């Protein structure tokens, strides 16, 4: 897993430890955050910075701890890049808030191609999940790297879509808020491994760092700095995605938004962005145009719907369902059907892919 940064050490003797080992040890010191780390490392090489900092601390950390930390990183397959040293991702180096130290699992490939961030709320609707999945799949299919945060909801769906595009597609890149050995959210353990295998997972946090709340807004600025275009799929007006959008705008990165129902609270942010003049991202093609790329991959969804058209009786149920979430009972009241008849209609609609049921709630599904 050794990257071109060459930050790999064979020996563990202090004098043979690379500069990256000292930077990683500095990052792992208690009380050192991303900003503090940048301050410590500015204007001197990591080893000097570490020695200076170690002298100020009691008990004084020794070289043995640096070596132990370095071998732990090696065991975990994590490589370290230090700002200003060879091997640091070029796309981040010029950023005014570039992470001083970057931990990475996976190859550096994703950081060299074209990159689009697909972000959104953890509590998305089926619509947001579907759109994020399709965006991820089609962008990756066109060789674009999908950057996201591996969170629940939109982030996870975008990555799952990027992985679904196959092994030859653009490698996904995730930027996470916890240490690279702390899987968060736990439900995404498998996705986490898949992203690490196909692309890369980046973090500013040292191994073992808990997913503390303050780390996520800080992480979002890295996503914005990495991406050439930021696409907001679904988000309430105030939320983590807003940090990403603001960070992207501060860097003059184009922000695109997926239009959503005007009454859906989870589409408040993208709709507000559209009203402010952002470009709409209806599908991957819109995003590819913004990147000045021509579509080559599987392309947007075919114009014809592959699903068999529902019979008129079931169309009535679809109309009663609308584009929101409804419970079985809401639907029974709205359509005036008996539960048994409604059950048959919904089972047929679900079989044909028109609706999806989750936890007793029903939603309209989009063509896949």
């Amino acid at each position: 897993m050794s990257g071109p940064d060459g930050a790999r050490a064979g020996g563990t003797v202090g004098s043979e430890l690379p500069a990256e080992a000292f930077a990683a040890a500095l990052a792992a010191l208690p009380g050192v955050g991303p900003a503090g780390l940048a301050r410590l490392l500015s204007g001197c090489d990591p080893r000097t910075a570490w020695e200076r900092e170690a002298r100020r601390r009691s008990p004084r950390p020794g070289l043995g701890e640096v070596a132990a930390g370095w071998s732990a990183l090696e065991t975990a397959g994590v490589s370290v890049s230090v700002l200003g040293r060879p091997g640091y991702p070029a796309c981040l180096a010029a950023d005014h808030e570039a992470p001083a130290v970057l931990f990475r699992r996976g190859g550096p490939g994703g950081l060299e191609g074209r990159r689009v961030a697909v972000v959104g709320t953890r509590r998305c609707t089926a619509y947001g999940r579907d759109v994020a999945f399709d965006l991820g799949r089609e962008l990756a299919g066109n060789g674009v790297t999908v950057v996201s945060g591996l969170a629940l909801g939109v982030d996870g769906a975008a990555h799952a879509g990027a992985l679904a595009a196959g092994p030859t597609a653009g490698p996904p890149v995730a930027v996470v808020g916890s240490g690279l050995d702390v899987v968060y959210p736990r439900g995404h353990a498998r996705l986490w491994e898949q992203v690490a295998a196909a692309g890369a997972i980046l973090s500013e946090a040292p191994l073992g760092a808990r997913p503390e709340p303050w780390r996520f807004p800080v992480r979002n600025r890295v996503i914005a700095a990495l991406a050439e275009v930021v696409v907001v799929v679904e988000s309430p007006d105030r939320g983590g995605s807003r940090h990403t959008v603001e960070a992207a705008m501060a860097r003059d990165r184009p922000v695109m938004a997926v239009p959503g129902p005007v009454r859906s609270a989870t589409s408040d942010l993208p709709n507000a962005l559209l009203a402010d003049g952002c470009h709409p991202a209806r599908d991957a093609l819109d995003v590819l145009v913004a990147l000045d790329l021509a579509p080559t991959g599987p392309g947007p969804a075919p114009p014809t719907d592959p699903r068999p058209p529902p019979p008129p009786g079931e169309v009535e149920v679809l109309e009663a369902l609308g584009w929101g979430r409804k419970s079985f009972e809401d639907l029974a009241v709205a359509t005036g059907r008996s539960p048994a008849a409604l059950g048959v209609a919904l089972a047929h609609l679900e079989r044909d892919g028109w609706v999806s049921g989750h936890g007793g709630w029903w939603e309209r599904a989009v063509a896949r």
Partner: protein
Amino acid sequence: MIASIPSATLLGVEGRPVHVEVHVSNGLPGFTVVGLPDAACRESRDRVRAALISHGLPWPTKRVTVNLAPSGVRKGGPGLDLPIAVGLLIAAGEVPAAGAEGMAFLGELGLDGSLRPVPGVVPMVAAMATGTVVVPPASVPEASVLGRHRVRAAPTLGDVVACLRGDQPWPDAAVLVGAVDPAAPSVGAAAANGPEAEPADRAVVGRAVAGATGAAGAAVADAATAIADPGTAADPAATGVPDLADVRGQPVARVALEVAAAGGHHLLLCGPPGAGKTMLARRLPALLPALEGAEALEATTIHSAAGVPLPPDGLLRRPPFRAPHHGASAVALVGGGSAWMRPGEISLAHGGVLFLDELGEFPASVLDSLRQPLEEGVVRVCRARGSVSLPARFLLVAATNPCPCGGSGTGMPCRCSPAALARYRRRLSGPLLDRFDLRVVVSRPDPSTLVGGPPGEATAPVARRVAQARARARARGFRSNAEIPAPLLDRLAPLAPPAWALLEQGLRRGTLSARGLHRVRRVARTIADLAGHGEVVSEEHVCLALALRGEAGLGEVAA
């Protein structure tokens, strides 16, 4: 002189025979109770002394030793007051021993000599081998439930002594029961949420007078009994059982309730505050058929042992409804306690409905303790001093909000953080949630149906359909469809080809597990039974079973 009086004590829901041996001899005057008595037993000395003196009976100024045999079994409660007093009088020569021949005694004494009821009369009487039992007047219906003994009662100790001496005949037990004040606290341990269906009018009652279901039987008969015997048609208003007609709208929840009652399927209602979850659950017991035979006797025994008030004729026929608060401890729920292994709420719900409101607020450890009884219908309570088996076969109905703030599902935004939601769902997930065959999202009914809408279908016709469906299940050899074992489903619930295709697709897509498949088939069997459909389960029934199964019923699931 020595006397030996048969009586009984209580452990769990079982009576244990006890012989009260009283020995009166010369020596330093004193009174000792031996044979592992608990505090209430030891204190009976003072009650017996006061009762004797109140009736002008002599307190022997001799050495008195009372032994509760077998000495190794712990005795609890005040029920041994009466046998101790009678034994003392016989041993002291005040009452001829022949008078009490073949009689067992049970009852607490007041300081004025009155006989007071004790909890657990049904199981304790069941443990008595004698032909006649003497109990307090208020306990006569309970003592008569078994019908194996001749039941004698007298209002005071003085009357008991007079009857034993032959000075007066035993009073008619049935007349005595009528004279008992129904408002008097019959037993100390009455639970806070006893059956809500206590008839207001307890006129002259008792098996001796009214038989099983006579004039007073009408008050205890429920809708299902009314079907079996039109002569005892129950007026819901008189029984105080809430009627299903009060539920407006909510077609799906009504169907779920009916299916749960007909098939014995556990039901989870999920909905925002004010959606009527509790209202629906309280209407479920009236849909269940009346308890019969052994089941009624089991339920009666448990209620008696727990000291929960019983219907006036002593036999519990209405399926009980228990709704413990979520503050309940594991012991309160499954039974136990160090002294006499009181049956818990799940045993009190035996044959009826256990309703857990705010399921997500119950501690996880308490919910976990329900899993074994749900599987086996029996809860085994083990303590250092011994273990008892308490019957606990009940229909579990639970209600929960979709999220801790209760906002989602009402049109108002949910204010819960994702972490709080995940915590809430974790608590509601896993093995217990798996036991619910029916998981239904309940919404607040539309205001127009609440104010001006027509009343819903009443309890009686629904109960009739439930009774018919249950009869079909019984014809297959099971109490309810929920008990059909998986290997027999192919024979007892064959599927029509389109229904098969639908389930097969669910299995292939991974939306349905193998266990889920069996559950859906059992529920579909019940739905077909309710519809009066033949032996083959059609697509319609399977679709409804799938829709009623829901999943977690807890809002959206993260990607």
